């Protein structure tokens, strides 16, 4: 090592500058690689390897209940999956769940942001309170809703429903109500995220173009439609992309509230894969389901990113 240093210093005094620069750049690269290596290896070990292993597993029949049938089956799991009605149902549930909660998050988040941006006082407090659901663990959120909010007779929501004359409902026992409930729970927890992003985006819009629009005789609705909405578009698309990816892979809250039930009413694809793998112990088929979810997620995010670039 010492020799190299001496030689390179010797060359530097005579050789053209570019040589010296190249050596420096090389050293820089080596140093950068050394700094990067631990994180890169950790990432490989915790994400890339499991992912590849998942794809590998999906090509096997691996049934812990019937180990004597285990073996390589190629694409058989995927063939079964395509004709599996429960797979298609859970995919539909996933899409409905994701579509409704993301739409609600954006609409409610935007409405709240528009409301709060005009608040002269208490904006700071509102932000602090609004952010609370986001910092809770989804499992905790699920527990709170299942017991404190939705429990028949004692839950706050049911109490309100009774007092509003709607009567006590079986919020988590009725298939439709259960779906509405899990969508509401996810929306409740993640709307603050959309709210915060859109509020920050709104705050960065210049005041004077609104004054110009007023003088140009635009009504409040026209100002929103023609100015606010187009200018917020990048932020809205970003929120939609981020929330869609999270909603597609949601698990903990639904698992603690309904565990996919009643029946398969709230069984999103993620939960189906989990149930297949760890309840029915059919690991190979579960892996194929998980890969299917991965593909769906990639396709949807690809479409969203294409939309983002479109204009």
């Amino acid at each position: 090592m010492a020799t190299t240093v001496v030689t390179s210093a010797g060359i530097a005094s005579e050789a053209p500058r570019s040589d010296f620069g190249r050596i420096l750049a090389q050293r820089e690269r080596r140093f950068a690689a050394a700094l990067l290596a631990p994180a890169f290896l950790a990432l490989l070990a915790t994400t890339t390897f499991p992912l590849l292993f998942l794809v590998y597993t999906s090509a096997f029949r691996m049934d812990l209940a019937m180990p004597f049938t285990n073996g390589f089956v190629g694409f058989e799991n995927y063939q079964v999956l395509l004709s599996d009605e429960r797979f298609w149902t859970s995919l539909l549930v996933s899409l409905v769940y994701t579509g409704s909660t993301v739409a609600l998050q954006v609409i409610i988040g935007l409405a709240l942001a528009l409301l709060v941006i005009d608040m002269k006082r208490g904006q700071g407090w509102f932000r602090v309170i609004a952010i609370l659901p986001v910092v809770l663990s989804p499992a905790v959120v699920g527990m709170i809703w299942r017991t404190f909010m939705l429990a028949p007779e004692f839950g706050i929501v049911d109490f309100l429903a009774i007092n509003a004359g709607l009567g006590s409902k079986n919020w988590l026992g009725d298939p439709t109500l259960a779906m509405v409930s899990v969508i509401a729970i996810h929306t409740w927890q993640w709307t603050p995220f959309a709210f915060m992003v859109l509020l920050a985006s709104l705050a960065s819009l210049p005041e004077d173009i609104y004054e110009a629009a007023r003088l140009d005789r635009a009504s409040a609705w026209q100002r929103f439609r023609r100015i606010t909405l187009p200018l917020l578009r990048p932020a809205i698309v970003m929120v939609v992309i981020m929330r869609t990816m999270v909603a597609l892979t949601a698990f903990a809250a639904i698992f603690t509230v309904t565990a996919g039930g009643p029946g398969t009413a709230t069984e999103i694809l993620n939960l189906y894969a989990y149930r297949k793998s760890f309840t029915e112990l059919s690991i190979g088929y579960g892996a194929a389901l998980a890969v299917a979810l991965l593909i769906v997620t990639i396709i949807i995010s690809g479409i969203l990113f294409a939309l983002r670039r479109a204009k």
Partner: protein
Amino acid sequence: MSGQGQVSFRNIVKMHGEFAALKGVNFEIKPGEFFALLGPSGSGKSTTLRILAGLDAPTAGRVLIDDKDVTSTDARDRDIAMVFQSYALYPHMTVAENIAFPLEMARLPKAEIASAVHEAARKVKIDHLLDRKPGQLSGGQQQRCALARAIVRKARLFLLDEPLSNLDAKLRLETRAELKKLQRSLGVTAVYVTHDQEEAMTLADRMAVFMSGEIQQIGTPAEVFARPNSIDIAGFIGNPPMNLVPARYVDGDVIIAGHRLKTTTTTAGERDVVVGFRPGALRMTEGGLGARVDLIEDLGDTAVLDLDCAGIMIRMRVSDGNIPGEGETISITTRPQDIHLFDPTTRMRL
């Protein structure tokens, strides 16, 4: 044009908490007039414009446009177009969409909008940029786009809030001349806010000079230049501004540093005054007021001399080639009619 564009401000007061931004402002603008609101920063001229536009409400007083009280009318119902200092272009719309926006809001037919947009863009010479977004335009082009958006709808009042302040010096001079021509050709009433007295002097038919929330003088630029109402206006108008020197008035003469100068102003008895004379009104002469040349600022065709006259600082503009050297002592005087007298306590003209 939907109206005449006559404006009347009656005792307008604007309070920001305890602070009075406007302390009772009164003025009238005639139809078709180019009216400038001139004053230093924080003097209330922009506040006045915003109240006229309907963007801010006055604390007290009434605003009349074409003899109709519009004090509580919303900005969108006043039929006023405005060019903002920042231009306030809609960043997500093209130049054409920006110009078309006020017409779309007025629900004009599409074909009519297209021709009006082209016409307005042609008037300000940006008809080749209609497909660009504001972010792709230079400062001068953005300014023209803002102008086009303001003239396209033929509003009865045309407000301009320091529209030239973000342009470089050369472009500012060019645009200034074009603005005047544009206003004349449209025949629209224009209200122009500026802190640059040169802009106000060159553009305005009449101007109101603001000082700390009050109008101190209204008149044509020539009137305000020739007979400033107060010490503050005298010290604000003109480049360099008027020399203001404490002196003693005795029987039609003023005594500055022991030297007597004749005036045409007569006032009772003997008293302290503030004497004002423009730098350009001073002449070099034999037997005048003695002064040492401290500094010469050569502007090419003219030079401004900083003179030390027994401890009093006086500025003089010299336009002939006869410029003394720094450190030389010269003797200066001025004509009696060029001497302005002000009361040192009330600060008003005598």
